[in-house]
């Protein structure tokens, strides 16, 4: 049996206001590798934690450009270049008739890129977590806010980190080991 390594110190919270304050103070104490698990998004908590704004909108925008470009190319090339289709003498390609398909493909590709970008940035699916056997952690998707400061963090120290979470109002502050 290899020696167990500390993974994280967890603390349960119930009140969103206390939680907000805790997040701010943890960030101010210099911790960077920590997370808070909640059953629903708590408004402003990501800001209090110092979470950087995600790049997802850029990924979505890239999807939009991709869809737009493909749509225009598809219609312009097939109808005006490869097999020039004469429908009642109308222009081989015009923006007016191209709008519906262009719009739809732009929306479609934006949505697909957003979907893939979301899970990619979250690094999901990840069907394992070192915390997954902890009862409190499991209740984070039910009714508990769980603060977790990871041992990998530079400032981590078992006593100081445990004391910090306790002082901030955390219940059942415990060490998770792997």
């Amino acid at each position, binding site marked *: 049996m290899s020696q167990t390594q500390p993974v994280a110190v967890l603390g349960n919270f119930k009140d*969103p*206001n206390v*939680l907000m*304050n805790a997040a701010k103070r943890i960030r101010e104490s210099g911790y960077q590798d920590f*997370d*808070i*698990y*909640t*059953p*629903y*998004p*708590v*408004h*402003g908590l*990501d800001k209090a*934690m110092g*979470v950087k704004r*995600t790049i*997802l*909108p850029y990924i*979505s925008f890239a999807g939009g450009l991709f869809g737009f470009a493909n749509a225009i190319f*598809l*219609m312009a090339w*097939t*109808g005006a270049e*490869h*097999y020039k*289709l004469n*429908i009642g003498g*109308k222009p081989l390609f015009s923006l007016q*008739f191209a709008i*519906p*398909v262009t*719009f*739809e*493909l732009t*929306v*479609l590709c*934006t*949505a*697909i890129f*957003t*979907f893939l*970008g*979301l*899970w990619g940035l*979250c690094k*999901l*699916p*990840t*069907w*394992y*977590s070192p*915390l997954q056997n902890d009862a409190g*952690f*499991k209740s*984070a*998707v*039910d*009714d508990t806010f769980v603060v977790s400061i990871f041992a990998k963090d530079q400032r981590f120290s078992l006593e100081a980190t445990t004391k910090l979470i306790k002082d901030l109002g955390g219940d059942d502050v415990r060490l998770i080991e792997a």
Partner: protein
Amino acid sequence: MNVTDTINQDKTPPHGHSGAPSIMPSAFEEPFREPLVLGNPTLHDITEKISSIPLLTPNLKFLITLFVFASMALWGLACMGYTIATGIGVWGLNNPVGWGWDITNFVFWIGIGHAGTLISAILFLFRQKWRTAINRSAEAMTLFAVMCALIFPLLHTGRPWVAFYWLTPYPNQMQMWVNFRSPLVWDVFAVSTYFTVSLLFWYIGLVPDLATMRNYVKSKLGQTLYGIFSLGWTGSMRHWHIYEIAYMILAGLSTPLVLSVHTVVSMDFATSVLPGWHTTIFPPYFVAGAIFSGFAMVMTLLVIAREVLDLKQYITLKHFDNMNKIILATGMMVGYAYAMEFFIAQYSGNPYESSVFINRASGDYAWAYWIMVSCNVISPQIYWFKKMRRNIPVMFVMSIFVNIGMWFERFTIISTSLHHDYLPASWGYYSPTWVEISIFVGTIGIFFTLFLIFAKFVPMIAIAEVKSILPTSQPTHHHDH
């Protein structure tokens, strides 16, 4: 920016801090708002209530209902097979009415889908918190409605196995491509996009709730399946941050889809030259009608669901009040469109146009026209009265009327215009055969079967979203704590 941005404007009685009222004088007192979740449940209560529904052992009533609808579905599928095997001749389509029940049903089902997306996306952008109790089932309804709708364009080609070849631009040795000027091709892109985006949006909304189910169910199989589909979601705030932005982007994408998809469907008719079809009012008219019929279908489903599954504290009378207001509003828009169509037909001086409209009201299909008008224009007027908006039997009956009326609207538009066009020599009556009727009944069966299966396995109410709108679930924003 997130789902509950307006929490600090939600004037439930001030909470926390020993119940003392805010020290800051408020220049404006907002009226007290009805609670959206009754009975003050805790977060765990919500989890329990909604997660336990899929775990209920299917009782006899459920199984009988499922059996009835599944039988309808199978019968419909059999008739579809018969149509494909024998040919479109088994339908009642003729010359001049080349589109009858088939396209009526297509537009009917697609229209129904739009309410789900409106609730999911548009009400989200308008920060209407009441949407959280109904958006999951409404969006599921959209997916099933679109699946039912797609059957018809494929089937009505007569040779559906080549429909892919005809409709999609794929490279081939004949160097043939589709005609992108045609609304029928636009339909292909619009409806596929609509289905895909709705599915992605619905699934994204589901993931946190599937994680809740994963941690709630006791059976290994349940944990495994919910675990797989919840992708390992932990509730990490770092993930929620990205999630909320993705949700907002998808809501923003779905919103124009509500408007554009049914606009494209309406263009199937509007871009023709047929009197009664060739009118610019069709896009907004169809979109309003779609929302109208969709909300009626959501109403039908939810009145039953909340009764059977005991969800009255989540799907409250306030929710129904709001939905009925939307039904009234869109019903008035549809009524306006009827009046405007008729007026413009007369005002235009075009004899063909005016004769079509007079024929609608007094010709061979007058019975269909007047069913449509009474169901769509006259009956929703009852919703001016708050008591009626909150009366369950009334709204259930009304929702059925609206569904019937909206089906007849599509039927009137399609069949009456076709049967009575320019040349009297071309005129001809159309009636459906038993095969067409059976296929439609079959799609109703498919729709309700899918919905029952959905209710059995998937959390019917958006658990995380309902939790996030509780008055006590978000931090207060005062800086003087």
